[in-house]
């Protein structure tokens, strides 16, 4: 299986200040690969380092060690961002701040195309295709982000990510800010796009149920290191690591009777484990 994205022993440190300041390492060497058409889910709590992995792949933070290879080409040089842009794109969590409020949807979607040399007419046609692709009305292009609901904005963000036909899309909590019924629709849209275009997703979320629904393989991350990696079924139904088990049991399920059992089991687990 050919991997479009390969991350090996990635380390990231933050916050070195002054001459004698020490960097705090937030990622302690993580490795994984993603094949074309595959979703690699990354689950963890806040501060686990999951977002930092995504930002390193996007070239938004510089790794302190390790390699990131995109399609066979190492991307250790951040100055090659413009070429990187064609290969890897992003959908962020918050659809309210990830779209520039001062630009129309048409401008937001056509800007990456124009920057990469597409002429105006072709860009306009591509924008129309993209809006259709994410099931937004054709006249959406003339409007501003504030005129759309959270779910619709996330569709716009997905269209923007698709515009340069990337091989990899980093999805950083793309549905956490959405209503439950909207969440399912956006996830299904992402899956459908993946099935047609064969894009690889690095899917980052705190929500195991969401990750399980869209990911082929899942890694659980805690304090900057993977604690467990496996297929979605393995990790979410038969977790090997106690941390994964804790995470799994902590998420409440919408069934009062089952939730009562899980709660009791969680308490048993907590009592058994040293604090």
């Amino acid at each position, binding site marked *: 299986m*050919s991997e479009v994205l390969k991350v090996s022993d990635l380390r990231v440190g933050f916050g070195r200040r002054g001459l004698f300041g020490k960097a705090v390492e937030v990622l302690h060497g993580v490795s994984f690969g993603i094949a074309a058409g595959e979703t690699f889910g990354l689950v963890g709590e806040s501060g686990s380092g999951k977002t930092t992995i995504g930002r390193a792949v996007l070239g938004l933070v510089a790794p302190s060690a390790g390699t990131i290879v995109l399609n066979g080409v190492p991307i250790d040089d951040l100055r090659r*961002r413009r070429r990187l842009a064609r290969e890897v794109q992003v959908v962020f969590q918050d659809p309210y701040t990830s779209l*520039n409020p001062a630009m129309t949807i048409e401008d937001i979607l056509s800007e990456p195309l124009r920057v990469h040399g597409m002429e105006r007419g072709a860009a306009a046609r591509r924008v129309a295709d993209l809006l259709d692709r994410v099931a937004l009305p054709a006249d959406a292009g003339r409007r501003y982000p504030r005129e759309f609901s959270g779910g619709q904005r996330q569709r716009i963000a997905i269209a923007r990510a698709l515009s340069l036909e990337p091989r990899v899309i980093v999805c950083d909590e793309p549905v956490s800010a959405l209503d439950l019924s909207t969440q399912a629709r956006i996830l299904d849209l992402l899956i459908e796009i993946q099935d047609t275009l064969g894009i690889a997703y690095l899917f980052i979320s705190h929500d195991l*149920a969401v990750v399980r629904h869209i990911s082929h393989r899942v890694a659980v991350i805690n304090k900057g290191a993977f604690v467990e990696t496996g297929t979605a079924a393995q990790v979410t139904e038969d977790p090997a690591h106690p941390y994964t088990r804790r995470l799994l049991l902590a998420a409440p399920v*919408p069934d009062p009777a089952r939730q009562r059992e899980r709660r009791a089991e969680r308490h048993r687990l907590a009592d058994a484990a040293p604090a």
Partner: protein
Amino acid sequence: MNTESRPRGYLRRVIGSLRGTLSLGWIALVVIGSFLAPWLAPHDPLEQDIDHAYAMPSGTYWAGTDSLGRDILSRIMHGGSVSLLGAGEALLVAVAIGVPLGMLAGYRGGVVDAVLSRIAEVVMSLPVIVILLAVVAVYGRAFTITMGALGVILSASFIRLARATTEGKRNELYVDAARVSGLGHLRIAVRHVLPNITAPLLIQSTLALSSALLIQAGLGFLGLGPEPPAPSWGSGIADAAKYVNRDGWLMVPTGAVLILTVLAFNSLGDALRDATAHAAPSVERRRRVTSSGGTRSDPGHLLDVDGLRVEYPGRRIIDEVTLHVEAGEVLALVGESGSGKTQTAFSILGLLAPGGRITAGGIHFDGSDLLALPDKKLAALRGTRMAYIPQEPMSNLDPCFTIGSQMIEPLVVNLRIGRAEARRRALALLARVGINEPERVFRSYPHEISGGMAQRVLIARAVSCEPSLLIADEPTTALDVTVQAEVLDLLRDLQRERRMGIILVTHDFGVVADIADRVAVMRNGRLVEEGPVGEIFASPSHPYTKMLLDSSLEGREPRKELRHV
């Protein structure tokens, strides 16, 4: 939500406000009068009518004449173009230097920022008039050079403002998205940052114009304005000051025009700011009731909401909502965003956002009619009999005070106990909500503790005065799942221990299943269905409830491993 500038509606809001209309009107009048003075002014500003020196306003001389019998109005009009052009030049120089440098400092950060910020600080600490006097001493009374120098000095405030606002926007997700799209830094700065910081820069510009006008008048007053006998506002005031004992009126027309113009620029700045703040949620909350109340209330219920209707100007956001809470019972209020669940909770607390009013129905709490209660009595109820836990724990703690003082204050005020006793109780409560080192947390400031810890503090504070009803608005949504589970455990324990009634506002059916006794499902401001938690989950009767439960991803088949590509 953020408070970005909104291009079209923004201008309309500025012009639409009384302040905006008046100040823009006056500025337009001054501009037209000044620049068209050669055609509009009734007299030649240099023409002397010695016989009518010190004349009061008359049909010939509308604003009177000065010591040489020159028409004051004409001199103000002719002097205006010099003053306004000078102020405009200073502003242009200030913006041209300050905005790019400030944006550079804010965008790049690091050494560039440190150097530019120190330079701006040095410039801002210089006494303006002294510098300008030095400039005049070197270059003579060349007005253009003086005003250019003033612009350089004023640019420091633009550097600081552009730096601060750019720094705020630099980490916006849409800027990250633009970087990921492969855009260059210059393009990101011009296309993605600049349009979103224009509003504060515009406001700063109006303030810079007014201070330039004042400084200019000051220079003119010192006799360093344009060469006499050319008219200018400053020299007009200097002239008037010289003869103030002989004719007090001289001061009035020129002074009034100067003051009004400066005021107009300042209040235009205020109007611009108000229009910007328009989109921001207001923290001020008021209770407005036009419902007569007088509805059903069951003596066995702790809280009764009957036929509640809430309206904001032009839209009805809650209608016909009827629900109740019994003592020691957890009612979950569930719905998607915009369903009105939070507004319902705020109506009970009497904390609707400005403009919101209860127009029908009634709310009875523990036998008393909340809508008939005077504001003071309701405020006394909040925090004592009725408590509230917010979604964002951090924004509900004051960063300026320690956790301890924020815990003690409601105890002292509401229970009228001494500070030592309040401190003892606060520490006991912190320990009760599962905080390991209550003493340390007690002394900490909010930024020193985690989000989960902050929510525990708020829960401790909410239950400190032993309320019988607790209203929790998405109390665990901002927390990690493992922390959420612990906080829900805590809420459940406290609720059983104290037999509190709880209204839990949430969108998460998992949370509902975990803690609620009964569920009320809301949609578009109306109650869709209501019942015991077991029934609703086992056999929802309304299709909307069914749809919500079905969209849960819980229990679905995980995606299969990708076999081959």
